[in-house]
């Protein structure tokens, strides 16, 4: 998942970027509203974390401008004052959730997970596809009740495909959402990654969770059980 982090305090920004990268996100960060608006307008993000008190363009105006461009990835706002006036303004501008500084990293992660999952139309954090079960909260993947050991990139790829299960996902889109800005698009890392995932999930070759559409990309092929 690709995340846009806009926070003006450099150390906090760095610390959050480190933490979020360690978990499930490929993070682009900006230190002011102007740069943040540019990134948000130019790249497809899955979720954003935006501080309200930003230089150049404040967080609320930034969100308004993004929403005016019909950019609708979920946004979580960070507020230092914690006043309801700020929260209401932020959410009315188009944010989806808020956190009051200081916050626990785990809390932030849980909120972000819920936001991304909801934005893809999944109500529950546990996605069941027959014998394959994805727990987006604990980041676990079970096949026939046995936990799979996946690398972070493998898990993120699978989760992205599963969350967007109705769509065909191009390699470019996958790269954009899973890797940082400076990733080399020509590499065949994605193909290798998908191959490894298929092997790990589908040892017997019966499940066929990921379909390849030649020249178009990949599609998560399993039907979700409600």
């Amino acid at each position, binding site marked *: 998942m690709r995340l846009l982090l806009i926070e003006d305090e450099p150390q906090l920004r760095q610390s959050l970027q480190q933490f979020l990268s360690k978990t499930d996100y490929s993070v682009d960060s900006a230190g002011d509203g102007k740069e943040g608006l540019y990134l948000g307008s130019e790249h497809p993000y899955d979720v954003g974390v935006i501080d309200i008190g930003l230089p150049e363009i404040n967080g609320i105006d930034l969100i308004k401008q993004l929403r005016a461009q019909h950019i609708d990835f979920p946004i979580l706002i960070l507020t*230092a004052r914690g006043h309801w006036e700020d929260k209401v303004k932020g959410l009315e501008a188009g944010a989806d959730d808020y956190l009051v500084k200081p916050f626990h990293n785990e809390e932030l992660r849980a909120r972000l997970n819920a936001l991304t999952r*909801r934005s893809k139309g999944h109500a529950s954090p546990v996605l069941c596809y027959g014998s394959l079960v994805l727990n987006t909260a604990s980041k676990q993947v079970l096949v026939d009740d046995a936990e799979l050991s996946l690398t972070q990139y493998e898990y993120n790829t699978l989760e992205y495909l599963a969350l967007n299960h109705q769509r065909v996902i191009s390699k470019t889109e996958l790269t954009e959402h899973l890797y940082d800005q400076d990733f080399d698009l020509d590499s065949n890392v994605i193909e290798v990654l998908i191959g490894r995932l298929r092997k790990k999930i589908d040892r017997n070759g019966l499940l066929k969770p990921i379909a390849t559409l030649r020249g178009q990309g990949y599609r998560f092929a399993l039907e979700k059980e409600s």
Partner: protein
Amino acid sequence: MQGAAFNSLLARFIGASLLLLPVFIFVIGGLLVHAFAHSQNNAEREKLQAQLYTILSVTEIENQRVVLPEALTEPRFNNQNSGLYSIIYGIQGEELWRSASASLLSQSLFDPSNPFFVGTHSFSQANIDNITLNRLSHDIEWISEDGTSIPLRVIVSSDNSPLAAEINSYRNRLWQWLSAMGVLLVAVQMAIMLWGLQPLKRLSIQLRDLQQSKIQGLDKNYPKEIQPVTESFNAILIQEKQQRERYRNTMSDLAHSLKTPLALIQSQINQQQMPIISEQLDRINQIISHQLNRAVIRVNRHASLAHTDKISVKATATRLIKILDKVYTEKNISFVNEIAKEHYFFGDEADLLEVLGNILDNACKYGRGHVAIHSTLNASYLVISICDNGPGIPEKQRSIVLARGARGDTAQAGQGIGLSVAVDIISSYGGGLEVNNNGEGHLSGACFSISFPVVQSP
């Protein structure tokens, strides 16, 4: 004039004129009556003088006796008790002649105290036979044909009662007119004063409107005597607002600059591995939030004419419900907003957002999917109730939850400071917060009742 009755400019003016006007009218009336009587007396004297000359013109001395024709040209001298008399005396007061009209007068008109001086007139009043008479006496020396001089005092006298009656009727008419004028004057004065005090009345209405936020400042078109006051008031109003805004901004800057490092520290530590540090950070954070909030509330409370807007409670609740619905999407909360459209909160919208936001947030957090908000208005309070269907709050903990101005550092872990902030704000408006558990119905959880006084005490 410190009494309660004179605690009004109008009462003072009316009181003063009611006291002064009668004195004024009395003095004027007295002077006018006096002047009128004086001129009437003068006229009477002149008339008597003319009569006296007609008497003198027909007076003859024959053989030491005063002789006048039987019938005089002035008929009143010829008729008994006509009210016009003439008697001629010698120097000793011996009567030498009397007109026919005076034949029945029993007393002498001669005034011995008036010394005899030839050529002098003397006008006076005398009470003869119970009638007041005007009396003009003229002393002359008659030189007879043989050269002897005979001193004579010729007295012409008239009945004073017609004159007195005229003066009396003048006095009566004068008093009537003056009283009518007085009443009219008071009425006109009252009207003038009401008109004159109109700007002050308008000012007081505007001040009330200002307090109720119907207007933002006083008008500019006041009379020039009041204008300096209204202008300075407007200036103070603006200054005060700016000052409060500055203070708020300072506080929020302070919050920002304190909380960002805290957030950094928090992001660096692992909650599980360093529980004590994490917990202490939470406490520091709560104390900062609490104290900064209280500081802002305190400065607002001291502003007597604080910027009080007329806020629709329903609209504010609707805004909050909309965003809470978004935040708590997963809980799929059903909100019932039964706030009456015509219920308004007079104060700062941010305060109402803070109070309702904190309590609604708790209801969403601890309720089980149902939150209802409704309002009632009685003579003195606007009561907003927020109920949920959660587990409710045990009796024991309610006082902790509601401890007025509870210190941030005694807040229970996990309780947050939202409620104590709400309590602080509510009490700064002179209101109250009550918590009950709803025993029955599908909303059987906690029920918070916020009451705001209808008339804001300054």
